[in-house]
């Protein structure tokens, strides 16, 4: 069963590895000692034997991440979310994926990273450009990207992460990044570090930050005079009393500016900017399209470009009510997968409540730009409508509890405590055959487990009355 794992173990020098009782234990030891490639091979051998082993699949994704194959790990975690989104392994996959995506997106703030090698399986879901909607649903183009991404999750086509795409668009357009770097949100605005970090981040009217950035360190203690000057400039540009002191009004304005800036929808790309972006993100296909809202109906035109800029599948024109955006996006995803001969979507259609589509999309956008707390507030505003869009609901849960360390420990425990034979459960069942009633995994632990008179051999007693 674990042939490859056994071969690997035979060549291991570590006595601890040689003693490892199972492939899972060996994989964890290899991960812990930094041999992620070998751990990945062992876990993939476990998955070849049992493709339904979600815990092994989670750690296989982690092994890929630790080996530097972030894009591959992301796609695996995304697939696990679509398979088991409500389970522990699904929630941990979401956390792991978000952490990986944030790290990659933060990388775009500093400069263009080296693109990964194309796999033929990655798609860039660029927001649809707005050709006119009378202001009713300005974020529909982005919402469509989220809906398509959700429909494709778990299929053979893996969408590029939205945080990475958003950061990359800013970079391509040579705009000051709208993505908020890691840790900034957690620093209170009424502390020197938090105040300085915001002023170093926010661009002033001339496009440069209010406070000059010093290398990559945003937590560095600023010069008092420079900080006062930056505050003064911010106050004067935001119609505040220019005191040079960060009073409560200034703090509030800083927070609102930060959130407002992250809430701005990504700017449209010029046609000649698409292919360079596709290449820079290591994608194989890109969605390019427009939408127009007229009389409550949405007209969407879609094209799927390959790396040469040609149509990978025939372009589509869709006309539908905004209430049907969920099912229509799934149909579009299905057409793409069918056209590329990559199977069909793994999930059924969702139907987000149309009135809440706008705030839910804004919550997703804020979250993908690194403002988790602000995103949570937007999701809370959506109320019960959140339940109509599983992606937004999962993200709302995640923004409320993004780092479930205890769950991670339990999952590791599940990986390591499993015996492939499950001999403990078998022993409990044998004991139960003989009348025993203990063990957590014996026949009595499931709803099917009833004591059967017929099989327990109890004798029927018929006695003549006195």
């Amino acid at each position, binding site marked *: 069963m674990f042939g490859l794992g056994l071969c690997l173990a035979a060549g291991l020098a570590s006595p601890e590895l040689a003693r490892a009782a*199972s492939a899972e234990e060996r994989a964890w030891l290899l991960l812990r000692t930094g041999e992620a490639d070998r751990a990945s091979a062992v876990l993939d051998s476990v998955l070849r034997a*049992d493709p339904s082993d979600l815990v092994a699949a989670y750690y296989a994704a982690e092994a890929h991440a630790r080996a530097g194959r972030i894009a591959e790990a992301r796609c695996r975690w995304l697939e696990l979310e679509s398979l088991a989104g409500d389970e522990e392994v699904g929630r941990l996959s979401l956390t792991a994926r978000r952490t990986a995506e944030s790290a990659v997106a933060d990388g775009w703030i500093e400069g263009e990273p080296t693109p990964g090698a194309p796999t033929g399986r990655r798609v860039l879901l660029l927001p649809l450009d707005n050709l006119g909607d009378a202001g009713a649903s300005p974020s529909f183009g982005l919402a469509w990207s989220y809906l398509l991404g959700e429909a494709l999750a778990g299929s053979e086509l893996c969408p590029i992460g939205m945080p990475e795409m958003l950061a990359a668009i800013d970079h391509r357009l040579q705009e000051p990044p709208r993505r908020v770097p890691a840790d900034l949100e957690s620093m209170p605005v009424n502390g020197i570090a938090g105040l300085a970090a915001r002023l170093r981040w926010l661009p002033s009217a001339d496009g440069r930050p209010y406070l000059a950035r010093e290398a990559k360190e945003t937590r560095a203690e600023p010069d008092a005079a420079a900080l006062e000057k930056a505050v003064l400039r911010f106050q004067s540009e935001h119609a505040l009393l220019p005191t040079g002191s960060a009073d409560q009004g200034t703090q509030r304005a800083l927070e609102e500016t930060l959130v407002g800036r992250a809430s701005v929808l990504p700017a449209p790309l010029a046609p000649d900017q698409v292919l360079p972006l596709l290449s820079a993100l290591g994608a194989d296909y890109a969605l390019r399209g427009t939408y127009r809202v007229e009389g409550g109906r949405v007209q969407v035109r879609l094209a799927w470009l390959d790396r040469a800029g040609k149509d990978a599948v025939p372009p589509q024109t869709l006309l539908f009510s905004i209430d049907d955006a969920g099912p229509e996006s799934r149909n579009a995803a299905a057409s793409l997968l069918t056209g590329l001969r990559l199977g069909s979507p793994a999930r059924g259609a969702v139907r987000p409540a149309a009135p809440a589509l706008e705030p839910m999309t804004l919550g997703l956008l804020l979250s993908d730009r690194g403002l988790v707390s602000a995103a949570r507030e937007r999701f809370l505003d959506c109320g019960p409508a959140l339940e109509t869009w599983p992606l937004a609901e999962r993200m709302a849960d995640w923004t409320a509890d993004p780092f479930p360390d205890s769950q991670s420990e339990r999952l590791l425990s599940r990986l390591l405590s499993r015996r492939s*034979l499950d001999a403990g459960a078998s022993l409990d069942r044998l004991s139960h055959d003989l009348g*025993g009633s203990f063990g957590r995994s014996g026949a009595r632990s499931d709803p099917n487990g009833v004591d059967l*008179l017929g099989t327990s051999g109890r004798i029927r007693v018929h006695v003549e009355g006195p």
Partner: protein
Amino acid sequence: MTRGLVWALACSALLAPAARAVELGARLRPQFEARSFETVRADEEINETVLPIELGADGGRWEARLGLELVSAAWSGEGSSGNLDGLSELSWSLASRFREGRWIVSVGQSTSLHDGALTPREARVIEPLSAPALEAPDPRPHDAGRTLLLAAGTPFETRERALQVALAYELRSEVELFEGGRDFEGPDVVRAGAAFVWTGAASRGEVAIAGESGGTGRLDGADAYETGSELSARARWERAFSGGRLGVGTSWTARSGGSLSAGSLLRESAVRGGNWGDAELDWTRRIAGGEGTAGLRLFAVRGFAGDLGHVQALDPSLAWRREFDRASLGLRVHALTGSGRDERGFSGFGASAAVGIGVLR
């Protein structure tokens, strides 16, 4: 001496050093079963609701269980009816695990709270509930107290195979049958079993065999009958696929007839043996955040006494189970359709749930 052995085992389980903090748990498994069947005389119906409640503690190397069972059973047919309600059983068990859980020594007792005199009406309810084909939860009113001493272990285990053996001795205490009293003491029994479990590429199999050798049952202090012996076997094989898990299983039990003592008041049918067997096929896949199982089972009973001593039936079922961080929830419904002796009708329906918390999740 037996009582001393029970307490010695109980104390050894409790005194075993705890490897970790004690984990507590509870489990509720409400079950409803309805059966209707034709006899040569009339149509009969039995409805039974059982609520077993279990409390458990796990100290790593030892575990303790405390259980009680509430029952509400009603029978109607042949122009009369009867019912049985209330707390039917209390039970406890202690188990100690050794050598990384590969060996277990356990002692447990169950006490039927119906072990006093049965009214004729209660007895009338119990009699059909004892039929092998009914497959209803066991109200154990005729069983009085039982004490079980059990040892089980894994003498051979590799990464992909394990052989397991178990031995049990069950003592039954005396009970007064019917108002006005006849003292009945069920026979003590010895049981032994062995199981072999193995894994392959994405598959897992398990076969087990068990036997029981009975003793002498006594009425009013005198030998009344010798029970027969029993041999049972079961096998199950599972294979995981990317879309779910396929399971195939079968079980079979053969019981030999016993013998009545000279002058016994028992009917001969009371010690008659028979065969019982089933075969099942099920498919499990992830659904609604948990695991859903659709199953189909066929079972047959042959040779036992009574209207339901000869039955064959089809038993389709749907089950769902979900595990949470510290709890689990299981639901199951099934239906029975088949025939009894002389092709008379036999049908039924059942629904059950299981809610587990903590160590019993």
